[in-house]
């Protein structure tokens, strides 16, 4: 049985939680909260903590089982299978949308003439390789790539400082807390995507007592790291573009990259940043691929070491990725899946399984 260390879990959590959320985070938050958008990010991510802790508490009671398998025990076999099917569908569809976003981001920024199928095919091939390698390989990959993504985001922030228009910062909370609340709600699904991943990965986590404590800290840490990073991204976009332009830009971070200039020599280094963001895309699509595969393993009991299932799932991703058009339609679809599928499904599923478990515990005590 594969196992990852607590440090790898933290890095993997942070990598999956961040994923490609730095593309839409500022746009979505600014849409609801205007110039106070950066206030929304940390609370939105923090909303994932209680759900993470609920899953963590279930992990202690059902060691070696993921939430799908726990659901079959607590909710009954068929209800569990139904939940598993929904989990597969959501993971596969959302993963395919993000795969489609890879092509969209590249075509709209640095490489407009390369066919979309090349982007999809290239990324899905890497994702299949990662999945075939297993969770240990995925964890090691994230251990290397995530710090580079963080460096990329920090560099974007630092290099954008000369373009800051400080008057965009004020007035702070000029419209009160209500827009911040709506903005927070708008980004909350990002943390729920991670909760879905956590629901599957718990089987691979260390089970020693000391490790368990560190895992709890890992959940906190990753959420705070990613919350701070995305707050930084949002703040940068607001300060450089202003709230109205931030709302309009689909890929604000790419636009920031385009504006970077080193000492009047090198400019337009967005293509180099795109190399880094590609790593983030691979992590996110890879995580969703893993989730869909775990779902298939739980529901259909397929074997892990069988190439055909990987290619089958890869094929499904490719077909689904070809459905939406790029641009605004794609981003609307991603937001729609986030708001109307991932958020309600995750909240109700985790609460239900955790609640039933608590209720049973109460009954057995009586």
């Amino acid at each position, binding site marked *: 049985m594969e196992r990852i260390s607590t440090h790898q879990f933290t890095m993997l959590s942070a990598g999956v939680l961040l994923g490609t959320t730095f593309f839409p985070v500022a746009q979505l938050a600014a849409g609801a909260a205007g110039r106070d958008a950066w206030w929304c990010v940390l609370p939105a991510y923090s909303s994932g903590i209680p759900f993470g802790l609920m899953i963590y508490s279930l992990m202690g009671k059902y060691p070696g089982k993921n939430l799908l398998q726990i659901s079959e025990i607590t909710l009954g076999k068929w209800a569990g299978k139904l939940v598993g099917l929904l989990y597969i569908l959501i993971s596969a569809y959302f993963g395919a949308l993000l795969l489609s976003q890879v092509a969209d981001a590249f075509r709209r920024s640095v490489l407009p003439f390369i066919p979309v199928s090349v982007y999809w095919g290239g990324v899905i091939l890497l994702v299949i390789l990662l999945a075939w390698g297993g969770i240990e*390989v995925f964890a090691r990959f994230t251990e290397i*790539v995530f710090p580079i993504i963080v460096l990329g985001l920090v560099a974007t922030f630092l290099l954008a400082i000369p373009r800051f228009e400080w008057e965009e910062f004020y007035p702070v909370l000029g419209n009160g807390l209500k827009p911040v609340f709506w903005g927070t709600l708008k980004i909350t699904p990002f943390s729920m995507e991670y909760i879905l991943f956590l629901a599957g990965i718990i089987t691979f986590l260390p089970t020693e007592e000391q490790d368990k404590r560190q895992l709890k800290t890992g959940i906190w840490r990753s959420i705070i790291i990613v919350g701070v990073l995305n707050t930084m991204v949002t703040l940068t976009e607001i300060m450089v573009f202003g709230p109205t332009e931030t709302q309009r830009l689909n890929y604000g971070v790419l636009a920031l990259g385009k504006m970077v200039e080193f000492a009047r020599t090198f400019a337009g280094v967005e*293509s180099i940043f795109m190399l880094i963001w590609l790593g983030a895309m691979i992590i996110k699509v890879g995580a969703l691929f893993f989730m869909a595969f775990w779902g298939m393993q739980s529901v259909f009991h397929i074997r892990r070491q069988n190439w055909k299932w990987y290619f089958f799932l890869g094929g499904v991703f490719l077909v689904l990725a070809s459905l939406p058009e790029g641009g605004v339609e794609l981003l609307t679809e991603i937001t729609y899946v986030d708001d109307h599928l991932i958020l309600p499904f995750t909240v109700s599923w985790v609460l239900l399984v955790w609640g039933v478990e608590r209720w049973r515990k109460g009954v057995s005590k009586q």
Partner: protein
Amino acid sequence: MLKDLTVRTKSRKIRQAPWTQTDADGEKPLSASRVRAVLGKSSDIVFRDFIMRGAEDIPCSLAVVDGLVDKSILDEFVLKVLMFDLTRQPELIRKLTTASAPKIIMERLAPANEMRQISKLGDALDAILSGDAVLFFGESATALVIGVRAWPNRGVNEPETESAIRGPREGFTETLRINTTMLRRKIKNPSLHFISLKIGTITRTDIVVVYIENLAQQDVVDEVMRRLQKIEMDGVLESGYLEEMIEDSPYSPFPQVHFTERPDVVAADLLEGKVAVIVDGTPIVLVVPAVLARFLQASEDYYERAMVVILVRFIRYLGTVVALLSPSIYIATTTFHQEILPTSLALNVAMGREGVPFPALLEALFMILALEILQEAGIRLPRASGQAIGIVGALVVGDAAVKGGLASPIMVVVIGLTAISSYTIPSYDLGIAIRLLRFPLMILAGTMGFFGIGLGMYGLLIHLVSMRSFGTPYLSPMAPLRIRALLQDTFFRVPWWALKRRPDLLDTDEPNLGGKK
């Protein structure tokens, strides 16, 4: 000849098999006539027959391979003793019979320091062919092996492929025993173990596995032994044979077994808990487990001062990246991403490429292929000719290519930079891997720009993180992260006085006792 030697079991079915140790013959009881029957056809095998006086006349036969033994030792301490000195000891003569001879000679007569009794045909053949003398007593099933190995060997010289400005000037030789001696001289500790085995059903090559007990993980030692013992091949003529047989990922371009000619390097690796494999007949010693970072370190890193090493290692890492990526980045930039170049540079590049009829990808492939041909041509020539080839390649061909409109001046600069950077890689094997990987990356860059480079690099990263060398993740200590090992002795090296604990890269059995104090 090589092909014949490496014929595997399958092909033996269709032709006459040579005698092998695994045959039932090897286990047969010993007799002088059986040995003669097996070895007698070879002109280099010498059977010296004589009569030893005893209670009865004992017909003796001494079998050796001419050229593999020290004849003066044989004459002085075996033949002279048994044929002449013995006659002065009537008490011993009375006791001496064919049956008692081996024991009496060992205990009371011959003053040779390496002697043992054998009773199997295979043991006798092994001993004779390895350079020992075997003394037979009539048709008795017991014989004596006398250690008199001596053959001409190359002296201990500084290895040409791993020369160092600072550090020992000695290198391993082709003789296994000299190599083990060099290690024993460096590590005078009873925990240093040498485990011998023979590999090669025909060549019967001597192999020694070296490790320090309690420093090396027993699992790793066992795994090395298990993999070596599983090898079934006709001959082992160089440690490279074994390297390919014991590595974890045979289809990877990356080296997974570190090799060196320097005893100080092997000793340092043993002190870090690694396991070495010495093969008779080659000065190249294998060391496992090997992680990627190890291939970017040189022995001098530990002899120079830490501050200097930090700079040198940085240059090495940078050189590796440049060697791998510079042609691809040139191709991607000139083909797809001109926007990242400053305007003046972009104009210069465009002007330089004006007369070049090929796309950047073909231009770069042509130049890189020319570089590879020059390197390969120069490597096996005598040093002076090799240098001349290098100069001709760099100056004449490069200049002619630019003047003839085959390549742009910037391309020549890029290729030159690539070539020079690749020489910063201390490991030849890793250098080869980088050279090999340049081609697919260039093609990806030429067809998909930076996205292609990204695909290639992330693909490479996935490959690297999925690799292991004898249980140790190949990218350790970066992934999985071992923070102490990473900060102490990977990208940097802290001063010796700060290296209080062994890097826990290999999870050695005693991580806290301090290896590099």
